[in-house]
């Protein structure tokens, strides 16, 4: 069990890293992009904007420790 936990933790740290909110935000942004394109909107702009916002928010949390939770 210990090895399974370590293995899972390794891959979590490898892919998700320090801020899980970034990964969750990316999943939402990709889902929204997929939804919009299937509705006929070519939402190429959505992901770059989401990346900029998620990155800025993550850095804000990192440099303002009291807002981290």
């Amino acid at each position, binding site marked *: 069990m210990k090895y399974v936990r370590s293995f899972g933790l390794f891959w979590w740290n490898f*892919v998700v890293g320090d801020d899980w909110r*970034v990964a969750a935000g990316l999943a939402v942004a990709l889902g929204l992009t997929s939804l919009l394109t299937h509705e006929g909107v070519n939402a190429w702009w959505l992901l770059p904007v989401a990346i900029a916002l998620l990155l800025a928010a993550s850095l804000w949390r990192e440099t303002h420790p009291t807002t981290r939770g």
Partner: protein
Amino acid sequence: MSTSTVLLVLGAFLASAVEMVEALTIVLGVGIVRGWRSTLIGVAAATIVLAALVAALGPALRVVPIGTLRLVVGALLLAFGLQWLRKAILRSSGYKPHHDEDAAFRREREEAARAGREQRAGLDWYSFTVAFKGVLLEGLEVVFIVISFGSAQGRIGLASAGAAAAFLLVVGAGVLARGPLERVPENTIKYVVGLLLTSFGCFWGAEGAGVHWPGDELSLLGVVAFIGAVSILLVRALRRQRLALVPAEAKG
């Protein structure tokens, strides 16, 4: 060669080079202090595991439809690339110390000198396990980048060539220098790699989600420029913020 192919080879080369510089520091630190036999066996064992991973995953990914593959690979590259970019921005703005290969080498040597002499299977177990883990963990990132870059564009061979060129360069330089490659501008390279991983992730992730990029492959340059500009603005804002906080902290 198209724009995306050039960026793909460059990304695979640079990402592999920084990971290999870190692996080289670990291997040199252990090998110089405790001897080379067990250390090199550890390196060889890790290399075999990594090669087996590439051999198993490369062909397996060919059966996945390209749209699905680009969506999954794009999402993974985005999550992975943003970690690199985030750390690079924190380093450039002074919130995180720069990675110092020389300090890492000294630390590795001190730990290797302090560790006990346990023999297993005729090997110095410390040298074997540290070299094995070091090469495997740094190598996993290389494998991940080569496979994701290569598979999403159907060019695993080219991405592997970029990684192989990095391997030859780093090992060659390491043999000549007989020490850590502290002069390699590692922090700058990590910044560029973070930018490229995030941009490729954005490009392929969106394509996988059904987007048609205006200008097709050329828009990849636009994505790199946009994310690059955002990251530079964030570095500047964080630097200003940090400098503004210094007097406040001194007062308090």
